């Protein structure tokens, strides 16, 4: 799922939950953010100036750039209920994407399925994403230590007791 940010550099952060409006809103986790030129064939060139200097001297170049982000679909909302399976239909082109509220994040992260979705996806930096997601969800769960322990235990199971990986993730989540 790819979305374009409304403003340049205005994408949600890595690991945040987003929701794409639809009849059954699709929920995903941001795992990639990138800014590039509108023209596929033109690459932005380094000017050796700060952003502020450039905005004064050549404001048009910022109009030629856009920020996009990629999200990993982890489920959808059926009414208020969180469903942890792929949505029946993909999100439509031109649908609006929003950040999930804390409540929606909590609904989606009560069980460990989102961790499994992340770990089972290839070609993304899974460990980093798990850490980022956990840091966001723990905040949504009001930093409850018991939640972190519960997720840690699930993670331990999902990683099939890869102790090194587990301990590195846990340590980085807490720091």
């Amino acid at each position: 799922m790819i979305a374009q940010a409304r403003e340049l550099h205005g994408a949600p952060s890595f690991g945040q939950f987003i929701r794409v409006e639809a009849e059954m809103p699709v929920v995903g986790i941001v795992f990639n953010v990138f800014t590039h030129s509108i023209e596929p064939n033109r690459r932005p060139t380094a000017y050796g100036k700060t952003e502020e200097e450039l905005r004064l001297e050549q404001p048009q170049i910022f109009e030629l750039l856009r920020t996009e982000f990629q999200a990993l679909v982890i489920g959808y909302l059926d009414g208020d209920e969180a469903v942890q399976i792929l949505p029946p239909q993909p999100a439509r082109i031109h649908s609006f994407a929003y950040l999930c509220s804390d409540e929606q994040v909590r609904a989606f992260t009560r069980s460990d399925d989102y961790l499994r979705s992340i770990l089972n996806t290839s070609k993304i930096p899974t460990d980093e994403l798990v850490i980022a997601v956990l840091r966001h969800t723990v905040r949504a769960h009001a930093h409850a230590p018991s939640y972190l322990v519960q997720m840690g235990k699930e993670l331990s199971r999902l990683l099939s007791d890869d102790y090194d990986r587990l301990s590195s993730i846990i340590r980085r989540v807490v720091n």
Partner: protein
Amino acid sequence: MAKYAHNGVPAAAGRGKQIGVITKGSLVEGLEMKLDPEQNVEDMKAGKFVVIEGDKNDFFSMVTDMRLDANNQEVLLHPPGQEDALLRQVLAGTSTYNIVSLRPMLMMPKDAGADEGPRPVKAIPSHFSEVQEAMADDVAKIFGCEGDAEGRYFSIGNPLDMDTQVCLDMIRFAERSNGIFGKTGTGKSFLTRLALCGLIHYDKAVNLIFDMHNEYGFKAMKENGSSTTFVKGLKQLFGERVAIFSLDPQSTRARGVQPDHEVYISYDQITVEDIAPLQDELKLNPTAVESAYLVYAIYKERWLSTLLKLEGPDVEEFAREIGAHAGSLVALHRKLKRLENFPFMVSKLRDGDVVDRIMEYLDKGINVVLEFGQQTSMLCYLLVANIIARRIHEMYVKKSERFYATQRPEDQPRQLMITIEEAHKFLNPMAAKQTIFGTIAREMRKYYVSLLVVDQRPSSIDDEVLSQIGTRITALLNDEKDIQAVLTGVSGTEGLRSVLASLDSKQQALIIGHAVPMPVVIKTRDYDAQFYSAMGCMDDLPAEERREKVERDVAALFGE
């Protein structure tokens, strides 16, 4: 059976807290439970009482062992540091977990009626059956409750970490010989006193107690760290129902009580059979006993007084007269001379035979404590206990035979329990064949006599005797041989071994055998004012309460 609804579905209330699930095991080797991560492994003590809730049965089990386990060697090689609290918490119950070994002791079908008791275990629960802490009514269902109409159950303590009673079935307890074992200082005397109180209070057996260290009759010392206090003896608790016989009346009086009877033994009461078990103590050689028989053959019951009257050189002449080996008889004479030093040995009895007197008391249902006062030598104890027990034994055999012949209920002898301390002296493999106690332990059940064996060295007791012991109440034992001995003749003992070795050194005991449906570790009941009043002793009650109780009792006895 309040715990179950009528259809056998467990009611939500009355179940204990879940502490884990069964993961593997077998009927023979016991079951293994994975402890819930929220539970602290330090709360799982050996001997703790838990209930496994199977699909069709509840299994009452005992914790026998615990193990720390990890599914990943990496964790053990690089354990999380002290600062990684979260990581430790995460690992607990996932990569690192605790396994608790359980031994199912009894099972109870969930649809069992109220009057059905628990049964021996013949099945095991399925995978992932819940394990719960036992609740008060689980314990009551198994061990019964004090205060039943029959007076059958006597509370002897509480299960570990629980407040409910564990009861001994006193009828079954009195039926067979019993043992109370434990290292010195672990509370054997207290356990014995408790058991005796139960027997006397519920009147299930009349007791004859050979009280070597003057602990049971009147006042006893309570070792309480640095301070020493005194607790009440049986005489103080049960008054008229206990009589104190004393071998050393002065010592008994010095402790503040007048003995009901002073014990004297005449030389004529001693037979060769009484001397034979003293071989060890007197350092007799085997031929000495044979010489004694020679003297006996001629002088009958006067053999000992005749022999002891002789002086030095006369003995050899005497030996020639009766055709005995002179050296052997001289040695026998020299060694038996020690008996003359005992103040209770007299040549002529003044006020009747003490054994007849004891028997009279026992017939009336009065319990007899025989105090040894300062006569604490093993020789004296062995000699006196043997003489008296042998005579009592003969009388009981006669009484029982009369009862078998007449079959009249009034001829039925009262169940008698004889308490002996330092029992291994009487019941070691050598002596058990010679002393009367060996016979009693082996076969006297049908003659209404049983033993209460109190000992700190059960491994020295003859196996044949040990295997006949019905109920064993065991305080801490460390020696592997002793543990082995205590568990002789008990099935499924693998787990109990660890339990026995890990008991506290005070106020804890393992009870196995006839009087309890399953082995159980208890914290012994306090022997305090509350216990005294439960036993019907009112000395410590405030005057007001005492009067009320007396009035109540009077009303109960004579009507309003």
